[in-house]
């Protein structure tokens, strides 16, 4: 069968063909469609799927499933792997029981990301977990299957690392039809020898892990997971590329009418040293084309040194480390190395103001930001957080004094409060509160500081495309569940000053702010009003 699929849809297809049983994750851009798609089709395909409260819990849920014999997939955006890293590293030590693929979607150029332009491939080195890098939707489907195969063969989780231009790329994808299966009931067979990382066993486990990696490496060399194309004995110049950058290389070679051998690295870690050495042995020059960091370039330089090869290795000296790549950037690099002329098409220059993201029409946050700005005394510090309230940092609001990671508005505001006599207000969405806000709230109460926390409860995780969260009374699969109340959690965390209100009652909101800004303890105002897009959707059925 062949159908146009989005990269993320192709991952779902690959997992279905592999017989997936269990899916967990946390929504973020550019990975969110993976979880959404699974939640849509879970029931009819005998799959359990969920949005977890955060990526760490998502990974741990999948670990439980894997230990119980269920094939699992975890999905998250780049920063998610930071959140789950605490359990990711021991997972490499224990290994999996049933196969597991962890999808991590990076966002070069930060199209939909604050925080940092993260290159998550580095987690391979930190965790010793194999990393596959697809270039397009076809490979998203193929490599998901390959990931499950590798995971099954070596009892290791496998990371499938995509980027925005892979996850949100569409193309006709060849795939196999999947017959629906019934839901699998697993069994946890006790085996603390494998599942418990208690010392001194943990060091034994490390030894086993390193031995396993050698086996994987040998297998990778033999099975030719990495691909060499256009190879010729006489070539003196070659290219090593990974991920979507490989497609830009093909485009650039066509543009410049060059015929150059390419080694496409599909398995970033563990790197097939011998394949690389064999490829560069006869060359005088090699260009390493990878987006963001120069991890491959460094490894290849080491291989060349170890093999005592005398060749020039180009990489980040000719290609940017910031921002995504494209064919033009590669043409320029190739032109410098080969001397082949490249005329960048000159286009008309016109300077226009940026149209930045803004709150939607009717967004409940329109009623929040102006009031906070008006009531807060001059000099108040505003902590921004991730989600739709990030827009508070843009004009016309321009409120953020800092913006970090999920839940960080509150953690940092506590530190500012402890260090100064200034007023501090944290802005946080409902999804973010459940994800990472609660420990920070407990910390502020426990360690006796008094920021004012304004929780913008729009009744859904909106920014990433309206995924349900624990405050809604519905699971990701649409089942009724306990509706967690933010005010009750805040109370249980020891917060004395709590107010739940609808922000269109301006007076009530203003009074609450004035009162709470004078308090010596932590205060929480919950502005509860449904996301305008969600309200419209519910009305239209």
């Amino acid at each position: 069968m062949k159908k146009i699929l989005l990269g993320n849809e192709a991952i779902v297809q690959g997992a279905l063909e592999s017989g997936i049983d269990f899916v967990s994750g946390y929504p973020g851009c550019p990975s969110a469609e993976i979880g959404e798609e699974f939640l849509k089709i879970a029931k009819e395909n005998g799959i359990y799927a969920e949005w977890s409260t955060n990526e760490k819990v998502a990974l741990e849920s999948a670990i439980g499933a894997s230990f119980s014999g269920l094939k699992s997939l975890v999905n998250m955006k780049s920063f998610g792997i930071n959140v789950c890293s605490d359990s990711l590293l021991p997972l490499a030590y224990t290994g999996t029981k049933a196969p597991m693929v962890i999808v991590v979607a990076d966002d070069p150029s930060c199209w939909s990301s604050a925080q940092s332009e993260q290159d998550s491939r580095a987690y391979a080195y930190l965790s010793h977990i194999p990393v596959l890098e697809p270039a397009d939707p076809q490979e998203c489907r193929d490599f998901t299957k390959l990931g499950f195969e590798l995971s099954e063969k070596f009892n290791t989780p496998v990371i499938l690392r995509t980027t925005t231009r892979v996850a949100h790329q569409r193309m006709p994808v060849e795939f196999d039809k999947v017959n629906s299966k019934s839901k699998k009931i697993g069994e946890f067979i006790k085996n603390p020898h494998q599942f418990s990382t208690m010392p001194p066993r943990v060091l034994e486990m490390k030894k086993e892990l390193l031995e396993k990696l050698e086996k994987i490496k040998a297998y990778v060399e033999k099975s030719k997971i990495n691909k060499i194309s256009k190879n010729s004995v006489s070539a003196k110049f070659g290219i090593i590329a990974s991920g979507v950058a490989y497609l830009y290389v093909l485009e650039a070679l066509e543009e410049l009418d060059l015929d150059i051998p390419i080694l496409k690295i599909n398995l970033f870690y563990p790197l097939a040293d011998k394949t690389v050495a064999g490829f560069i042995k006869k060359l005088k020059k090699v260009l390493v084309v990878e987006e963001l960091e120069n991890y491959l370039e460094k490894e290849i330089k080491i291989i060349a040194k170890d093999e005592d090869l005398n060749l020039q290795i180009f990489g980040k000296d000719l290609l940017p480390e910031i921002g995504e790549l494209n064919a033009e950037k590669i043409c320029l690099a190739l032109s410098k190395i080969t001397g082949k002329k490249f005329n960048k098409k000159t286009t008309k220059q016109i300077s226009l103001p940026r149209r930045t993201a803004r709150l939607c029409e009717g967004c409940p946050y329109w009623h929040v930001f102006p009031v906070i700005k008006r009531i807060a005394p001059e000099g108040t510090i505003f902590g921004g957080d991730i989600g739709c309230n990030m827009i508070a940092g843009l004009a016309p609001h321009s409120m953020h004094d800092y913006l970090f990671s999920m839940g960080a508005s509150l953690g940092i505001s506590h530190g500012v409060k402890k260090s100064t006599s200034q007023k501090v207000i944290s802005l946080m969405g409902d999804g973010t509160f459940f994800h990472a806000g609660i420990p920070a709230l407990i910390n502020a109460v426990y360690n006796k500081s008094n920021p004012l926390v304004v929780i913008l409860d729009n009744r859904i995780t909106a920014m990433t495309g309206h995924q349900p969260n624990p405050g809604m009374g519905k699971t990701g699969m649409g089942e009724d569940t306990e509706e967690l109340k933010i005010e009750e959690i805040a109370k249980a965390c020891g917060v004395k000053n709590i107010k739940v209100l609808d922000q269109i009652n301006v007076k009530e909101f203003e009074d609450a702010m004035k009162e709470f800004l004078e308090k010596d303890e932590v205060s929480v105002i919950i502005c509860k009003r449904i996301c305008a897009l969600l309200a419209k959707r519910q009305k239209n059925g």
Partner: protein
Amino acid sequence: MDKIFNIIISGVGGQGVITLLSLIDEASFIEGYDVKSSELHGLSQRGGSVEVHIRFGKKVYSPLISSGSADLVISLEMLEGLRELVKAGKNTKFLINEYYLPFQDAPAKEEIENHLKEIGDKLYLVPASDICKEKLQNEVVSTIYLLGYAVGKNLIPIKKESILKAIENIVPEKYRELNIKAFNLAYGDN
């Protein structure tokens, strides 16, 4: 078709850029072309500028269009159409919805119009939103109206039948008739 046909669609997040992309992807696939496209979601979709790329032909490698290589720019908003001037080459045709969505610091409509005029006879400025609002009581399908216009005027090398089939494959049933109406309205106008 020997060469690859490159389309940039631009607009403001929420205008339906991705639906239009999906339809053109599907229609070009129906015609037997290889196709790759690239889109943006999330923060970039929330009311900011959105630019997506579609490329179809015999064999497509990169999902991104290089500067100066667009054959057609379809823009759902005037300023976002003008913004594409930097990416366009000498032969790029512009099909722009005569619809202005201002924001703080945005240039005046007249100023945008004057700049757009420089495109000359490669500019097709069509009041798709107004027409759809008046004749179909629905502005959202102005994207499909523009597609009908593009096919009718041969701005895009895809047959009408393939688009209609794509609408059938992609658009949910309850909106299908409205979409076909919007398409035919523009196609017939030509």
